[in-house]
């Protein structure tokens, strides 16, 4: 079970990592004065009263970036084992990887020509 004892370190790290930054925040919470009043807690709009609640009509652009990132992220899932085992593979593996990457670059070229990646 060597895999598990390796990850025990990571498990303890995941437990301790939030504690270390939370410590100063907690100390700050104790030491600092606590006098909340309505004006202080109003949302900060450069001094102007807030208008309407917190949603704003969003552009689809954010979704397009998230989508392209998702597709390239999943491409990463396949490319990491391919790159890892690349030493012991032959030219056929390079061809398979080339085709895999070529198809996804083709999708990127499509989005480029359709100007989907523009910010405006």
């Amino acid at each position, binding site marked *: *079970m060597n895999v598990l004892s390796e990850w025990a370190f990571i498990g303890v790290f995941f437990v301790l990592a939030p504690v270390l930054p939370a410590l100063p925040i907690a100390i700050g919470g104790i030491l600092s004065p606590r006098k909340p009043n309505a004006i202080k807690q109003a949302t900060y709009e450069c001094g102007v009263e807030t208008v309407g609640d917190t949603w704003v009509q969003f552009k*689809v652009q954010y*979704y397009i970036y998230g989508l392209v990132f*998702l*597709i390239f992220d*999943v491409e990463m*899932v396949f490319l990491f084992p391919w790159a890892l085992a690349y030493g012991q593979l032959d030219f056929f593996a390079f061809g398979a990887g080339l085709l895999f990457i070529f198809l996804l670059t083709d999708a990127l070229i499509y989005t480029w020509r359709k100007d989907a990646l523009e910010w405006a």
Partner: protein
Amino acid sequence: MVPLWMFLTAAAGLFAIGAYGVLSRRNAVAILMSVELMLNAVNINLVAFWRFQTPMDMSGQAFAAFVFVVAAAEAAVGLAIIISVYRGRRSVTVDDVDLLRW
């Protein structure tokens, strides 16, 4: 070592909760989230059987990787459809989207 049936019951529970979410929620995005849960339950089962039955060969991990691809593609296209439905109908609750053409 945690026995196999514990993993299977947990995955079955996750699958049932996901099914309940799909069947009962009104908001399309919430339904898609529950579908993601069901896909995760399938993934747990795949990896659990791979670990207990045949840890030597690669079938389990490869299958789980392909489930990732399908889940990602499904989430991407599903959310795109929901966004364009929202643009057309200004609401995402599933009951309003009843006409075949809008």
